[in-house]
Structures are given as C-alpha cells and as structure tokens.
C-alpha cells in the first residue's frame, strides 16, 4: 500500500507586514534587498516583534482544518547554517516538548476520506537564493532577503493519502480554503509549496522537495511511486532519503545532501514571550472567520435551489462567490449564478484574469434582470458580458454600442423572414416537406438580426408562413 504525507508551506500573503518586523509581507516585484530592515536581516541587537495578526490568521487556518488551538503558543529557533537565513536560525514552532504550535490534531474530509492534520505551525520564510545558471553549475549565488521573515504556516498531514489524485484534490481544497479565509493568495508564485513523504508497504520513507506547482506534485508523486514499486518488485530496498523534483526531466533525483542527518538544535525563542490564546480568543477568532466553503455551499442549495454542481463551483471560489453574494437578489439569484458559472468563469479562470475584470456586481445584476425580462437574448447577453468585462461600460451603453436590443415585435421579424424566404427558396421548399429542417431558417433569421430576434416569436411566424 502506498502512503503519502504532505508538508505544505503556505505564505500569509494577505498580511500587511512580515512576521517579526514591519517590512511588507508581499515582497514580489521589489528590487532585491530593498524590502528589508535590521530585524529581518538579523543585524546585531535587533529583536523580533511578533505580528499578532499573523497569529490570528494562522489560528483561522487551524480552526478551518479542525485543529485544536492550545492555551499558549510559543516559538522555537531551528538552528542551521544557510546563506538565505540571515540569523542562521529560523524562528518557527516545535511540538516535541508539548504542543505549543498554533494548531494540532485536525482533520478534513476529502471525497469521503479523512485526512488527519498532525500540526500547523507559524514560521518565517528565509530569503531567496538566485543562481546564475543552474544550481549545480553556478559559480555565482546571489541572495535576496526581501522574502526573509515573510509569515507562513507549515501544515503537516499524517500519511493518510493513498493516491496522487487524493493529494491533488486535497491541495485544491486547501488552496480554496486559505483563499476563502482571506489570508493568502495560493496562486501567487511560491506562495504555496509542497513537500511529500512517500513509502510503499513497510518500506523506507522518501521525502520529495522542490516541487513548483500542484500539477507537478501529482506528477512527482506518480513518478516516485512507480520508482519505488519497481525497486520493490526487483527486491531492492528503497533508501530513506530526500529527493528533488527535476522539473525539466520530470523525474525525482536523489539530493545527495546530508539534510536527513541535520541536528537543528531546537531552542525556545526567548525574545518572543509565550502568547496566551485561551478559549475566549478562540471564540472571538471564530466570530471573525468568514463563512466556510461548506456552509456557503449549503446556503446556495437550500436558499436558491442551486444544483449541487453549480453550488460547488461557486462556493469554492472566493472571488466569484463574493461577486454572487453582492450582485444577486431574491428574484434573479438563479440567473446570476448561471451568468457567473457558465459565462464569466470561462472568461476569467486565473488570478491575473480575475484581477483584470472590470465587471461590477451592478453589471451582473442588471444583465440578469435584462435576460429575465426578455430585453436580451441569452446569446446577446453573453456578448454584452464580454464587452462589460473588457470596458467596464454600463449595460445600457453596451447594448447601444453593440446594437443588442431584443427584436420581438412580429412586424419587424416578419419582414426579415420575407427576406430570408426570397434568398433561401430551396431551403423553404425543403422545410415545407420536412418540418425538422426549420432550424436552418431560424439560424438565418438570427444571423440577419445578429441574434437579437426573439426565438419563440421567430419560430411561430416561420411555422405560420410555411403552413400557409
């Protein structure tokens, strides 16, 4: 049996500042070594100052994953020498001498399977090494400390996964969850990093590091499982080691480092006093937490009668569910959810695209109303939506500029049908014989009216004319 456990590093990118100083938590797109101060580069005499907001947000993640939050939390130093680590120790949390990390013993259901969470710890990210060329062949290594001190939570699961697919589903759920809480944008480069531990049967555990994306996690796990199974089949013992995912060759490679032998000499961090959390604070944090994805899904199904699939898709995406909650009313909820899940999500499926959307809740609401009131065909609605997304113009403006008004008066449609009859004599004759081919004529009318003709009226008049 394959057993897979995960360690997920998730940066709290939505916080304003780093974990122990007031430098920005969002270090991306800054000049190297400009987002730093004496604290985050460990200048002698500087002291870490705990960001209380980070503790709150980490507590929210812990609660969302069903973890227990202890009365008191504490910080430890993990000592090792590495150039990206300015103090040569990382401030983190450690449970070997009693549970003092922000969360422990949680669980989450994934497709009917329970995944146990061993612990969640709050810690600082190191800086970044930038190699000239590849890391193996480089002669020059540069250090950028802009990231040093960025708050992150490390989530450690028990080895409860059996397949790479379960892992992928879990990671997607986890990403949605932290995004929903509003603590992190998991789709930013490097914001969510995953290490996996894999073993076959009673075999040794192999750790896989350096996996860049969720998709690669699944691939790396597949590769590693196959590698271990083929070793076992040939009676070769799987070595306990750390392997790195080689993105270019799509294989895992033994890292040959002595990481497994490292002794981190953990030591309590005395510069940060023990933080009392207690039941009251936990209750307070609970009240500040946004509605969970599960609760939201239930609400959508119960209150609006949304099909489960639509409710699933909508509730797990914070951006679109917020848009839904702000744009719908009692009457148009179903239409709004349709517009969002069938049209809008297709237009903007990535973070970058979502950020570019110029659409507001008002746009969506008006669009839904217009469709329901028969002022727009669904087809024209789609065109209007595309235009509003790009330009941010009002629905009325878009309808005028694209000439999308609904043609429903029988007179105008009849005129157009007469034109079509002249042009399509053969098709008309055929339709008289075989009523099934009538759609061809409907299509012609639609093309002439750019989709504005009311389909029901068009069909009625067509039938009458063909019969007469």
């Amino acid at each position, binding site marked *: 049996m394959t057993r897979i456990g995960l360690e997920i590093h998730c940066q709290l990118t939505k916080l304003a500042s780093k974990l122990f100083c007031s430098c920005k938590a969002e270090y991306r797109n800054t000049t190297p070594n400009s987002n730093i101060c004496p604290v985050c580069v460990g200048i002698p005499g500087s002291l870490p100052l705990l960001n209380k907001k980070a503790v709150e947000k980490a507590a929210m993640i812990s609660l969302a994953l069903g973890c227990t939050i202890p009365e008191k939390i504490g910080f430890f130093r993990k*000592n090792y020498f590495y150039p990206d680590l300015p103090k040569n120790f990382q401030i983190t949390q450690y449970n070997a001498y009693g549970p003092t990390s922000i969360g422990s013993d949680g669980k989450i259901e994934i497709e009917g399977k329970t995944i146990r969470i061993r612990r969640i710890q709050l810690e600082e990210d190191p800086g970044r090494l930038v190699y000239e060329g590849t890391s193996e062949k480089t002669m020059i290594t540069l250090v950028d400390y802009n990231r040093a001190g960025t708050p992150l939570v490390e989530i450690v699961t028990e080895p409860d996964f059996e397949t790479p697919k379960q892992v992928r589903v879990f990671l997607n759920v986890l990403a949605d969850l932290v995004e929903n809480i509003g603590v992190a944008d998991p789709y930013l480069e490097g914001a969510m990093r995953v290490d996996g531990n894999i073993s076959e049967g009673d075999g040794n555990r192999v750790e896989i590091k350096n996996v860049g994306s969720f998709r690669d996690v699944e691939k790396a796990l597949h590769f590693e499982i196959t590698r271990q199974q083929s070793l076992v089949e040939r009676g070769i013992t799987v070595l306990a080691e750390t392997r790195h995912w080689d993105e270019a060759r799509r294989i895992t490679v033994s890292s040959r480092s002595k990481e497994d032998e490292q*002794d981190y000499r953990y030591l309590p961090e005395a510069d*940060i*006093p023990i933080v009392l959390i207690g039941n009251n604070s936990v209750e307070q944090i609970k009240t500040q937490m946004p509605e969970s994805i599960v609760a939201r899904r239930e609400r959508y199904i119960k209150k609006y009668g949304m099909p489960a699939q639509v409710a699933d898709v909508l509730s797990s995406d914070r951006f679109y569910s917020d848009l839904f909650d702000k744009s719908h009313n009692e009457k148009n909820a179903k239409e709004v959810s349709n517009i969002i899940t069938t049209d809008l999500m297709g237009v903007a499926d990535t973070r970058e695209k979502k950020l570019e959307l110029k659409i507001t809740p008002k746009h969506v609401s008006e669009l839904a109303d217009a469709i329901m009131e028969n002022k727009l065909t669904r087809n024209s609605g789609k065109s209007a939506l595309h235009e509003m997304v790009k330009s941010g113009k009002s629905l009325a403006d878009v309808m005028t500029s694209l000439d999308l008004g609904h043609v429903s008066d029988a007179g105008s449609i009849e005129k157009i049908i007469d034109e079509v009859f002249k042009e399509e004599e053969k098709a008309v004759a055929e339709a008289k014989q075989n009523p099934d081919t009538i759609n061809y004529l409907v299509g012609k009318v639609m093309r002439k009216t750019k989709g504005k003709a009311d389909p029901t009226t068009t069909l009625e008049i067509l039938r009458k004319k063909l019969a007469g």
Partner: protein
Amino acid sequence: MNLGISATEFVSQVREGAISVEEFVAKTLERIEKVDGKIHAFITVDSQNALEKAKAIDKKIKSKEKTGICFGMPVSIKDNICTAGLKTTCASKMLENFVAPYDATVTSRLKSEDAIIIGKVNLDEFAMGSTTEHSNFGPTRNPWNTDYVPGGSSGGSGASVAALECLASLGSDTGGSVRSPASFCSVVGLKPTYGMISRYGLVSYANSIEQIGPIAKTVEDVAFLLNIISGHDVHDNTTAKNQNIDYVKDLKSGISGKKIGIISQMTGDGVDKEVASATNTAISKLQDLGAQCVSISLDAVEHSIAAYYTIAAAEASSNLSRYDNLRYGFDFGTEGYEFKAFISKARSNFGPEVIRRMLLGAFVLSAGYYGKYYLKAQKVRAMIKAQLDEAFKKVDYLISPTMPILPFKVGEKIDDPLKLYLTDINTVTANLSGIPAISVPFAMSSSGLPIGIQLFADSFKEKELLQAAYSLQETTNLPEMTL
C-alpha cells in the same frame, strides 16, 4: 575642576551655572587621554562629537531652551550596545568594523535627555567572561591597582566610571557582568529585573537572562539613570508594561523595620576572609539602621553555576551563529571558498572563550542531550525562582557579597575557565530568576582592593532595592580615586 563629582552633582552644578558642560567634557577627554593608556577602558572615544554636543548644550542652557535632564553628562557605553554612527565591536574580531545603522533604545533615551556618549568601552568578547581579559583589543585593568582585573564582562564600564573617565556607564549583565566590575572597581552597579529595560540594540549573548544595567559612582546616580532608560519599549516584546515609577523620589526612606535574608550558600565556605568579614560588618550596619537580618537557605543555588553555563552557552550558540561574515564583519580574501568553508574560515576568528561556550551550547542542545542538560538546567532555574518566591514571602531583601573573592591579577586565572566560572556563584542567581540585584561598594581590603556588597529584591521592586542600597552606601566612607 573636580571630575570626581557624582552624575547627580554634575547636573545640579551645571543647572546652577557653576560649571560649563564644554569645560567638563574637555577635562574628561583630557583625563581619558592621560589615564586610559594604563587602564584601557575605551575601545572608541568620540572626542569631536562630544565637544560639539557639549557646546550645543551650553548654548541651549544659556538661551534658556528646554534641556534634557542629563545636561550634557558624559557617559560611556559598553561596546555591545548599539550606537548609530559609532562602532559596536563587542570586543570581537568578528565585528571589528561593525557600525550599527540604529541606536539601541537605551542609547536613544540617553541622547534625548542630552547625555553625551563620550565613547564605547571594553568588555570580554560578546560579554563572555568575568575579567575583561577576553577582549580582542586587549584587557582592561583595575584603576585601583592596574596589575589587577577590573571584573567583567562590563570591565570597561566599571573602570571608566571608577577612573573618572566619565560620570556613568551602561553595561550589560548576563551572569553578573554589571555587578562584578562594580564590585571590583568600587562603583555601584544594578542588574534590573528582566523585562524592565529594553534590550533592543543590545547584542544578544544569552537573551533569556540578560539585562542592560547602569554603573555609576552613587546609588542616586543609578536611580537617576534608571528613570531614563527603564520602561516599556515597542521594539522589545519582553519589556514589561506600566512601569511609571520615579526611582529617585523617596530614595532616602531608610530600611528601618525591613527584613533582610542572609543567603547561607553565598556567605559560607569559599568566601575570602576579608570579603566575609566586610559582609558581616555590612549586615551589622544595616541592623543598626533598624533592619532585621535572618539567615536563609536557598539550596538550589548550589546548582546555579551549572544551570547558568548550560543555558547561557545554549543561547550563545544560537545567538552568535549569525556571525558568518556574509552581511557584515571583517575583510578576508573570500576567493575560492565554497559556502561551508567560507563560514568556518570566518568563524575561526572568534576568541577561544566564545568558541568554548558556543561548542558547549551546541552540545547541550544536540539531539539526545537536550533533556539531559538544557531541560535539566531549566528545571534548576524554576527551582531557584520557586525558592526565591518563598524567601520573599518572609523577607524584603537578600544579601551576600557580590564577589566571593577579592580582585585578582591579570593573567592569574585566565587559563582555568572552570575556576573563573565559579567566581560567578553569587551573581548568576539574579539572572536565572530575573530578580533585580545591586552591588554597592562597601570596603577596601588590607591590600587596597575594593569589596562590594550585593542586595537582592523581588521582581520589579527596584525602588525598594535602591532605598536599601542607599542606606548601605550612607554607612560607608571610601577612599577617593588617586590614579
């Protein structure tokens, strides 16, 4: 002009217009020029800036502008406390060129009250030692007899005050580093309660037990400095809130009716005869003032040295790991080194005592030994605290000699680290438990070497502690510095 006046006297004389700041600072600089070659208290002297500041303060006083309460008082600062623009070397090769980009909180608080930072003073490298012999820049000598050590690690602070090279100094006390030189140099030194003074800008050695502390000629001066440098600091999460106490006010309240516990483990075997006899005299003088003295046993103290060196070394091994010469440090040809070789080459420039403690610390924290040593040391620490809590239910103060022995000669004990460690037996208890302790100069030995008496009080009872120290000080009649 008398450079032997106290800091408090200096303030009142400047206020009255009896002396000018510029003249006093100039005379002080002359004095440093004249005697520091023999004592070597200073690593850096900031003459030009000191004179300019002095002139500016004189001008402020003349034009009746608001002036800070230090009125240009020249102070020295231990070279492990950051001063923007002045080197902070920690007496180490590793930081010989390090200039902090910011002021420690204590530095900025002194500056904002118009104290003049006249220079940075010597210490055992990274404050590890009790003689100031372990400095990369050479030892500091005792102004009362330059063949002798000044105590340590804040030996430069103690010696510079005793030798009249400044009016006051800031040291740091991890295991007695303020009180030891205060005792050996016949000046007053206070180790405040942990959390009373910001450590922001103090280069960490053992961060869970150390505090910055003032060293000055009198108890009044120490109270005056404490008013300025103590209090909550947003830059240090370990500082206590709500400390709005005036330590100068009611200083002369006396100790009549107070109870003092004589710590039997610090006054018995192993204490030098002359030191023991001075301690007995101090006790009877306090009794004469109306205090009630009783013997008290704190048996956990017997394990205090072992616990102290375990905890301090463990923290040191972590605190000092940042000195890898990557971001600051000293120059050496880096060409051709791979990362690990580079780090070990750079770190081989620590002095032997620092290396000894880092190795010891790395060992006690390593897998399999943490519980055996580090956790056990923490248990001793908790035991000491519990025994002190019990003791302070019965008494207001505790008393002992600050150092169990008289100052010894430079070079005499440096080759026997264990013997040196044992001289900290009376001071480490205050650090392990966090309580405040003060060393008050009390007597001179027959050979003319200073003897200090140590008083302890419960956490955050500095006001009461200073009252007792003042009472004890008033019973003494000590010689003037003749160097």
